[in-house]
């Protein structure tokens, strides 16, 4: 056997984001019903980070063919991929999503800003001690309710997006931190992105459904998850606005909402011809990600037209991702 041994495999395997998971499932269902000759793809929700880690651990039958991600692959991860022989990767943006902050219908309501979220959730806000117990500790205009946020774990892309799009933005409102970014990048990222672990932030594992259930049962809790879950459960939970912008389809689609972000799937080109049906499965994505398509029905925000066109093309050409793409 040469590189990537370990026998052969018949079913497609995808791992990664729990945000992308429901979309991947639907595509998979559609795929098996249109292509009964292929076995059903196996899809597991491991979180974007966990998924990419697995994805990048090598090529071969015992390694997944695809990683779903609710954030873009990081340069460091790309590096790991390259080192492990996963050299040819195609990146497909399947749509958009936003990290939604939500509470139960009739529960706590707030107008959040990145700064508030940062001060409420940081392990050490601005390098100091975290003393905020209630929202009103953070900002007297907010309700006097204990801070209780159910959110994704560190393996998750939503968590990364939370750190990058919200926490860091909130942190950088402080000029000192802004300056620190230049002088000590590591320290900056630790202070700005580390989340408190004293129980105010509860990591619910890779189960966004569970977060929805938790906040539905507790009117004073806030949940953090993908917009699609918010949309799907609009009758149970309500989105909290950020900087005064509601998390809605249009606001995300136009990036007016600060937590808007693209969703990706990554494919190993080497597996394209090795795994029966992999191309057809990817084509199925292309059929379903359109505006008003079946994926939109369950909460996927379609990519802007130009992006969609580019990605539709990528479904046949499979352009290889290069280090340059991460500049």
């Amino acid at each position: 056997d040469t590189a990537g041994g370990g026998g052969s495999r018949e079913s497609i395997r995808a791992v990664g984001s729990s945000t992308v998971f429901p979309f991947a499932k639907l595509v998979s269902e559609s795929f098996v019903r249109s292509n009964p000759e292929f076995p059903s793809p196996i899809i597991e929700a491991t979180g974007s980070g966990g998924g990419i880690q697995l994805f990048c651990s090598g090529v071969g039958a015992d390694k997944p063919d695809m990683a779903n991600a609710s954030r873009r692959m990081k340069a460091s991860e790309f590096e790991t991929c390259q080192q492990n022989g996963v050299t040819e990767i195609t990146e497909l943006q399947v749509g958009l999503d936003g990290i939604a902050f939500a509470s139960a219908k009739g529960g706590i309501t707030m107008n959040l800003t990145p700064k508030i979220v940062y001060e409420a959730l940081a392990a050490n806000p601005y390098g100091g001690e975290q003393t905020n117990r209630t929202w009103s500790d953070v900002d007297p205009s907010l309700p006097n309710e204990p801070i209780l946020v159910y959110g994704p774990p560190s393996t998750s892309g939503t968590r990364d997006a939370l750190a990058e799009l919200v926490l860091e933005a909130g942190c950088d409102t402080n000029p000192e931190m802004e300056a620190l970014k230049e002088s000590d990048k590591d320290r900056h990222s630790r202070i700005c992105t580390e989340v408190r672990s004293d129980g105010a932030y509860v990591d619910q594992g890779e189960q966004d459904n569970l977060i929805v259930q938790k906040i539905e049962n507790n009117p004073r809790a806030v949940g953090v998850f993908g917009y699609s879950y918010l949309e799907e459960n609009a009758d149970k939970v309500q989105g909290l606005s950020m900087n005064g912008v509601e998390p809605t389809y249009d606001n995300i689609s136009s990036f007016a909402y600060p937590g808007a972000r693209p969703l990706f799937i990554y494919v190993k080109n080497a597996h394209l011809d090795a795994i029966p049906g992999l191309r057809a499965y990817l084509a199925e994505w292309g059929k379903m990600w359109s505006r008003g398509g079946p994926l939109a029905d369950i909460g996927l925000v379609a990519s802007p037209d130009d992006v969609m066109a580019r990605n539709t093309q990528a479904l046949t050409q499979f352009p290889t991702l290069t280090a340059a793409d991460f500049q």
Partner: protein
Amino acid sequence: MSPAILLLLALALGLAGWLAARARAWTFKRAQPGVRLAALPSYHGWYVALWIVIPAVLFAMVWAALSPNLVLQSVLASPAAADLPSFGLQRQTMLAEARNVALGNSPAVFNPAAAGLVEPFRTAISFYNWIGLAATLVIAFLGGAWSFLRLRPDFTARTRVEKMVMTILLLASLVAILTTIGIVASLVFETIRFFGMVSPIDFLFGTQWNPDPMSNPLNPQGDRYGAIPLFWGTIFIGAIIAMIVAIPLGLMSAIYLTQYADPRVRAWVKPALEILAGVPTVVYGYFAALTIAPGIRDIAVSLGISNASSESALAAGLVMGVMIIPFVSSMADDSIAAVPGAMRDGSLAMGATSSETIRKVMIPAALPGIVAGVMLAVSRAIGETMIVVMAASTAANLSANPLESMTTVTVQIVAMLTGEGSFDHPATVSAFALGFVLFLVTLGLNFIALRVVKRFREAYE
């Protein structure tokens, strides 16, 4: 040749050998009418049949493992294989596709490039099939012939067949040891690896449990792996809350059923309790998460305890306690039944009432058995997974408030291993260390409990 066909072939040959050998034994018998054979003709049959089937089946197994490789080698040597891609997976898949088509498992290849390989596969497969078939036949024949030639009127076929049977029985009982070794080895190996990354001191005595599977595996941050909160959560839910429910209810149920209940009532209630014990834990978990946990939170909130968690330790513990009731009750039932009736009669004859007899004589006498039963119940509760996975939380909380959320060892094992994290990361491997601790603790509890029970039984025998 598929292993199944080889197996059938071996069995058919065995049958033939059986018939032939039995016939042979009959001829001995007819030849010397007065003389008894040393074994029944059918044992001669079995002897030869086993000598045919066992070597043939062993060979078939070896062949099943070897032949695909041989086929592969010969296919790779064929010119059609020259332009196979060098990428392993793709190569393997194409080969597998072609083989599947050649074997008739699938109608066509998906990858057109593999089509050329189908024919070489067909040829190679049928070639090696013939070899396999021939070799099986030869081996079966050799085994059969050798054993057949040993048949004599005074040949003790039965003894030999029985020796083979005994060997098989012995091998079967060794599976238990192998399993134990397998468990211990897999746990120990990974645990040692884990302790290479995180110090056992940090793990066993640390009070912060917050592993980060995305952190750099080379810098595992030992202070994030303090398992004390998990141990506490496990004990609090499984050994405290659940037992507070299960021990009195189980014990009183057993007492009522054995000492008071009308036989007709017992005939209905006992199976009902057994049903309670037979409900899968995932159903209990669902029940806890869907019905009990929100209920408890609502009650707590209406009582003004506003920080009650909706995945409280109480909910998981209560439901686990209910699950354990039948277990405790049947252990208590056994222990009470093991107390000689003479004790009961002795007390009743003193003019004690039934409840006095039970409380002051039966229970104290059955106590070792009951205590051992409780230990087994605890060991069961702390190893229980689904109820806590579904109803407890993943938040490692060191608290004595049953309304707060807590996590347990089993929850963390599931959490760490279902994420499918990398096996190089201490967060993933920590599951094995947790499993090892769980294994040792339950093992200890069971071991002590079984000994106590045994001694208790012997005392009254």
